[in-house]
């Protein structure tokens, strides 16, 4: 059956501050945050986009709902092309796709009460019948007692604020929820609650989740499929279990190894990636991970690796895979 969300060859480019100077001095006048990404998302499943800062995962997520303009490529949702639509045309789509943002408190309008925040989706789409009833039900869905409706964002703890943003996202029962770093800024003890809550809501309403995170532990428990992004490209994609059991791309292995376990004197960790993600202004030649890769060969320095499919649904692009 057709996938709920299909992203094909999406490229997103940002102009840097003064184009004239750049053009004169030969520097690139814009940077490519997302350099041709394709993936599909099955309805009812949870798909994780993993990557470090600068990988373009947040930019991609925001581009799907039109918050960030796409230069080329296409985004299809439930069989309809939604990339390139005007703001007004996008309004209908935005009933179906909801977003949860990274900063638990920062993503709630500081001057509005929780009740006003939760009422917003209904007001925007004109479904204000039995508004208080709907709000009460939403608070209950996310496990917050009714008296929270009068509170203001700065009076909430990280966990409570996160619950409010989840409730807001689910107000109009969207088919797809894009969660940008849902566990960021939360203590370990509360992260579990949030993930359980999202799992319950998925089971109850069949919501599909696209999760953006850099926390591999979370992905292992929550995501059905995952993709690893580096410098605006997907370097490896597949079922979560396959990738955790047998990661192939050297960057994925480095990520997994850098994921420190809370066991002292565990096998002392070998650092598998040197240095840091390079700036997008001067992208490395050949395989873009080669400057940091410990297993690079000469070919890695010159040309981009071809994409390989070791098994159905599992693909990666690496000259010297693990």
């Amino acid at each position, binding site marked *: 059956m057709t996938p709920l969300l299909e992203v094909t060859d999406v490229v997103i480019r940002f102009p840097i*501050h*003064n184009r*004239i*100077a750049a053009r*004169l001095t030969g520097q690139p006048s814009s940077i490519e945050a997302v350099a041709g990404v394709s993936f599909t998302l099955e309805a009812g499943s949870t798909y994780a986009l993993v990557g470090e800062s600068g990988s373009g995962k947040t930019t991609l997520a925001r581009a799907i709902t039109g918050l960030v303009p796409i230069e080329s490529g296409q985004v299809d949702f439930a069989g309809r092309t939604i990339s390139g639509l005007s703001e007004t045309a996008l309004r209908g789509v935005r009933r179906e796709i909801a977003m949860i943002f990274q900063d638990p408190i920062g993503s709630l309008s500081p001057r509005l009460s929780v009740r006003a925040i939760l009422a917003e989706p209904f007001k925007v789409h004109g479904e204000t019948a039995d508004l208080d009833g709907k709000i009460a039900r939403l608070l209950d869905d996310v496990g917050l007692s009714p008296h929270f409706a009068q509170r203001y964002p700065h009076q909430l703890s990280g966990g409570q604020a996160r619950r409010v943003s989840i409730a807001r996202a689910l107000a109009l029962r969207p088919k797809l929820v894009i969660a940008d770093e849902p566990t960021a800024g939360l203590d370990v003890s509360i992260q579990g609650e949030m993930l359980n809550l999202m799992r319950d809501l998925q089971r109850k309403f069949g919501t599909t989740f696209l999760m953006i995170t850099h926390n591999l532990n979370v992905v292992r428990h929550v995501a059905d499929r995952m993709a690893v992004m580096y410098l605006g490209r997907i370097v490896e994609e597949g079922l979560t279990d396959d990738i955790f059991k047998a990661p192939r791309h050297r960057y994925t292995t480095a990520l997994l190894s850098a994921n420190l376990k809370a066991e002292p004197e565990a096998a002392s960790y070998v650092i598998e990636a040197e240095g840091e993600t390079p700036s997008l202004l001067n992208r490395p030649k050949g395989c873009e991970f080669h400057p940091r890769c410990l297993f690079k060969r000469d070919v890695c320095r010159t040309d981009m690796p071809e994409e390989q499919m070791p098994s159905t649904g599992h693909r990666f692009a690496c000259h010297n895979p693990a």
Partner: protein
Amino acid sequence: MLLYALKRLGLALIITAVALILLISMIQLIPGDPAAVLLGPLASPEMREMFRQQMGLDQPALVQIARFFGRVLTGDLGTDVLTNRSVLVTVMEQVPFTLALIFASITWSALIGIPLGCFAALYRGSLADRIVGILSVSSIALPSFVIAIYGLLLFSVKLGWFPTIGAGDRGDPIDQLYHLVLPSLAVGLGWVGYLARMVRASMLEVLSENHVRMARAFGLEERTITYRYALKIAIIPTVVLLGMGVGNMISSAVFAEIVFARPGVGKLIFDAISTRNYPVVMGAVMITTGFYVLCTLIADLIAAGLDPRVRSTL
């Protein structure tokens, strides 16, 4: 950096042009026939007609604007109908006196205002901080012509320390300085308070930043942190503020120029409007607007130069 300056200069010219277009349209609306006012009712109708031709007032507004800018590009700002000397000379003669007044005022008010602001930030919340707060606010509230008159009464008449009138002999810089003291006191006093408050506010902002906490963690003295490190950052918005202030200080200079009978562009504009001497008004406003835009541009460039984060992107 050069490219940024050129871009800003282009913008500056446009701003001056728009300001002048606003002025021309405003002049069109002013009642009364300028020729009559300028030449007085005695002048015969023919003379008035010839005069209106010369000033181009009989043309529609757009033609006037086009003609004005056409001539300006060739450096000719028109002739002052009364003394039929070139407007450019008439105005540029006055500019040095206003410049001297403005820069004298800004210099001394910055030399006192900025350290006062740092001091108030260093001892924030203390009694000294409150006193500086009250004094600086009161200095803003006092109109410059009141300070001028009391200054004259005290320093010139009673104590006889400073001259009352004019800008001093042309050749003798010491004498000109003496003529600058009281007027720059009057014009600059408001600025001492304003700068002190602005520097204090931006200093408090900087002192709450992380790198100051780190400096304290390395045992650096609060005084060193405030005067050497925090001031380097806090001074940047202040420079931009100074640029804008110097620019429209011509308005406050008018009062000092009237009370101290000093020559200057401010008074020139004031007299020119009263006698409806439009060529001089246009020329003077163009130069003052240009001066304002230039000051803000220079201030922005200095601020950009002071801030390595901005400098590297230009």
